[in-house]
């Protein structure tokens, strides 16, 4: 397959391929079936017609029941995909995710497992306000047993989704609402991107930006601009946020000696704090500057566009953070 594909189409293709291969792959979520329009963001468009309403099930607005049913089906050996429309609504199903999906393999001594994918959407920048925009990956990264994934381009979306569905443990798959429409090279059918493996989105030698999801695009743009100033930035796209590819991150920062950790989520207590702490544990004597962290402001995501733009890490802030590491005098 050649040509271009959008992120939505790439996700749809990955799910379609998995459903064609394995009858155990089923979808549950609000409005996901054809009768309700194939999902609010159309990721499941066309799947009901192909695989039937017993495999593409629209649900009541009952997040605990949706995730719980997917946990149960997964325990029975199916590979359910739950669509939780927005990431903030995962908080309604926290008990099923944290106390059950994540822990049942361990608490059963390995007798059972939960091959479940929870797809969810979020993102700052479209004016959805405080309850429809949060990136909550750090909440889940803190829970042993969960794998958290987010793509920054359509090819990775397709490949990571196939791997997430094939994974024998629960995966939270975060889709950024601002990325749904972006186009990129269409990967071949059956394309897979391994979980737990970061990508070097751009090679560089002076400073590493470690990021994931939508902010990879910002980092790449900033890296291009800084190149004009003679600063060579390496951009690491984690792709799997947790457990993350520590080896690739350490190798990159060992090479550049400088690191900026960037995410859209609130900076305080974010995944960036964990990564920065590991870098200082592992590379204390080798770092040429303190690790810089960039993230969202410490407030709810505001609605007013001017405030929302002030909330999001700006490209100028990313540039300044890189320059801070470059200009640091020990």
């Amino acid at each position: 397959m050649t040509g271009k594909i959008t992120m939505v189409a790439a996700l749809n293709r990955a799910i379609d391929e998995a459903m064609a291969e394995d009858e155990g792959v089923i979808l549950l979520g609000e409005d996901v079936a054809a009768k309700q329009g194939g999902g609010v963001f159309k990721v499941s468009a066309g799947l009901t017609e192909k695989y039937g309403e017993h495999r593409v099930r629209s649900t009541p607005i009952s997040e605990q029941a949706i995730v719980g049913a997917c946990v149960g089906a997964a325990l029975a050996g199916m590979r359910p995909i739950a669509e939780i429309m927005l990431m903030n609504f995962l908080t309604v199903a926290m008990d099923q995710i944290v106390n059950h999906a994540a822990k049942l393999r361990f608490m059963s001594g390995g007798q059972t497992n939960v091959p479940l994918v929870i797809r969810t959407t979020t993102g700052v920048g479209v004016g959805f306000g405080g309850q429809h925009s949060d990136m909550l990956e750090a909440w889940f990264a803190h829970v042993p047993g969960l794998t958290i994934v987010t793509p920054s381009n359509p090819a990775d979306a397709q490949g990571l989704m196939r791997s997430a569905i094939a994974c024998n443990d629960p995966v939270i798959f975060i889709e950024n609402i601002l990325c749904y429409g972006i186009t990129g090279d269409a990967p071949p059918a059956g394309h897979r991107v391994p979980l737990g493996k970061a990508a070097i989105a751009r090679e560089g030698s002076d400073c590493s930006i470690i990021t994931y999801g939508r902010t990879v695009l910002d980092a790449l743009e900033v890296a291009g601009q800084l190149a004009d100033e003679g600063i060579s930035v390496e951009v690491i796209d984690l792709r799997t946020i947790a457990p993350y590819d520590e080896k690739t991150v350490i190798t990159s920062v060992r090479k550049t000696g400088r690191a900026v950790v960037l995410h859209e989520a609130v900076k305080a207590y974010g995944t960036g704090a964990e990564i920065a702490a590991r870098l200082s544990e592992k590379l204390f004597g080798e770092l040429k500057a303190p690790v810089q962290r960039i993230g969202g402001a410490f407030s709810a995501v505001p609605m007013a566009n001017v405030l929302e733009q002030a909330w999001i890490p700006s490209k100028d802030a990313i540039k300044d953070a890189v320059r801070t590491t470059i200009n640091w005098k020990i």
Partner: protein
Amino acid sequence: MTIDREKLLDIYTRTMRCARSDEKIRSMLMGGKLAVLYYTYRGQELVSSAMMAALEPSDYLVTTYRGQHDQIAKGVPLDLLYAEIAGKVTGTCKGKGGSMHITHPETGVMVTTGVVGSGLPIANGLALASQNRGDGRVTVTCFGDGATNIGAFHEAMNMAQLYKLPVIFFCQNNRYGEHTAFADHTKVDSIVTRAAAYGMTGVRVDGNDAEAMYTAAKEAVDRARAGEGPTLIEAMCYRMMGHFFGADFSYMPKEHLTEMAAEDPLPRLRKLMLDYQFTEAELDAIVAQIDAEVDAAEQFATDSAFPGPEELRRDVFEAEIAA
């Protein structure tokens, strides 16, 4: 005689395995041989045994922390169960789950949850898998009256009826949610009235009446297996001790204790067995055999080793975490 004599004997055997086992665990706790959190089910042995006797071994069970009777009645081997309660590596879950998280897929025990009400949505998923596959399995999920006031109960009931899932919501109404009496936590007279809110069949039964309890269970199982959808069963029973073993239950009024003692399922079932022409000697022989099994399970658990620290890195994910 309203049920098959052989079936009643089956129910009696399961009930006595539950009863003798609970007594053994309590004596181990009293004697200092065990020091673990344990939720005794004294008083609920029969309701569960009659329910499980209506199931096939391959049917699924999802239960709660007060669920050792459900697991025993479903068929979990006592030696593996005791070892798990004691946190031993030979237990069902290698000692990593304990009494609140017993899992034994070989006998259909898929989840035991320590979170009130959380098993119900999961039971729907097991039933949904059976529905899609057409494997004919039925899923039973056990919970107490206290669980019917948490949101998961309502979400799960609605979804189960919407999809006509082969699932049975088995409420063992033991009249207390932790320390709070039923009338102090719920303003309707019975749980079963809530079935109507979801268009679901609901049945209320004296759970300590073996014939009535088994009949209600069998009807619900047949309905589910025939593809006619879920049932809410409210089995009336008593929790004859505190919330957990050793816990104070002086908050139970004297009249409640008197009523409870009169309704004790064990003497009631014994009397019914005699009515069905079983002899005292036959019944005693069954109990003696169970006691031997219980003693052997205690020995097995006592002699078994604790898990090693490497178990912390296992079963978090499919692949063991590197040391």
